[in-house]
């Protein structure tokens, strides 16, 4: 999952497009939160961090009922 900086939110569509170019298969975009989820080869993750407007990238975790 990718977190976009708040000032970049108006340009979220462009950022999503840049993420695709960097090799990410987009699953969902949560525009109100500025987050994007999807999949990518682990070795391409550094390229996602280089995309302008990206604040952070974290692996998706599995969660369960508690």
């Amino acid at each position: 999952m990718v977190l976009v900086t708040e000032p970049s939110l108006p340009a979220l569509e462009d950022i999503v497009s840049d993420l695709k170019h960097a090799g990410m298969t987009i699953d969902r975009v949560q525009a109100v939160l500025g987050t994007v989820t999807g999949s990518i080869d682990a070795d391409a993750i550094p390229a996602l961090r280089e995309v302008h407007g990206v604040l952070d990238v974290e692996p998706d975790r599995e969660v369960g009922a508690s």
Partner: protein
Amino acid sequence: MTTATNGATGRYLVLLQEDSAAAGARTMERVAGVRATSTAELAGAGAFGLLGRSNGILLHELGVAVVTAEPDQADALTRACADPGPLAYVERERTVYAYAAPAVEPSETAGPTTFTWGLRAVGAPESTATGAGIRVAVLDTGFQLDHPDFADRDVATSSFVDGEEAADGHGHGTHCIGTACGPRTPEAGPGYGVAHESEIFAGKVLSDAGSGTDGGILSGIAWAIGNGCAVVSMSLGAATRVGDPHSRIFEEVARRAMRHNTLIIAAAGNESMRSRDHIAPIGHPANCPSIMAVGALDERQAIADFSCGSADPDGSVDIAAPGVDVYSSWTLPDRYNTISGTSMATPHVAGVAALLAGRHQARAWELWARLGQSARRLPLPSTDVGTGLVQAP
């Protein structure tokens, strides 16, 4: 604890209506001949000699006067409070002491069995707040859509689990929704819902097998914000190890949610085995500082054996609620079930949050503060229960 004079000092506290300090001082003099020197005047004149002709002091910023009064003067002030005007309330001033020993709060959950022990423990039956008009999102395994106890309720649903509808094929989600938003007077059995007139937003982010992913949770949070939900209840998580950092993304997402007036409340986790001296750290994402983490208590108001604790400086338990042997709604045909977990504690807090939101129009950080401020302190480590047992307004 009390003295022969009941700890009274002979002075009285007079509460004035908001922004009525000057009018209040005039009224006290007119009805009772009591003169109070305002702190505003004192600051201006720099002359404490003013107090010589005065019966006391008016704390301008607080709108409270502390005055010496004879019984007939006090009666006159009390009568004036009943009339429309700037005087609100009169009390005897009390003498206070440094505490010599901590007070012990007796365990008190006994009462009629028309409500679950959890509802009684959070003071829900005595509260007139209902949560009406407040939207509560429960992100879980979905909801049993045609449950008879919810026939007259507004329920919006959405699924963020690929290939599964919002219908609950597990039971956990229906149970959590029951505690947060369910009825007080179901056809049969005890009342089990805290915010019994709130609007229910059931977001399915966990599969019928009870698991999900961060991506689904984020989608559920975004859906809740888009629908103006004041509260998001998440009885879910992933175990962490001591020293694991919290998710920077979920922390930032929680802050953004707060800016959209949405408070996220999450289960601390069930990985402890306190009976074997093991306290596990708070799970993800409840370990994010801006997500309210909920620990579980049993009916004796002891910490539940399984309840995660503040094992890291980073993640801390913020509040506690009933989470052992909790009775609530379940999928059909069972209809009801009694289960345990910090999952069960979390919707008690979410329900109370909805009551507070309705009562005070509080949202986001104000709502967080009111939950903590009104929680009943417990003689237990704050690392286990935060500010204590959540209480309905």
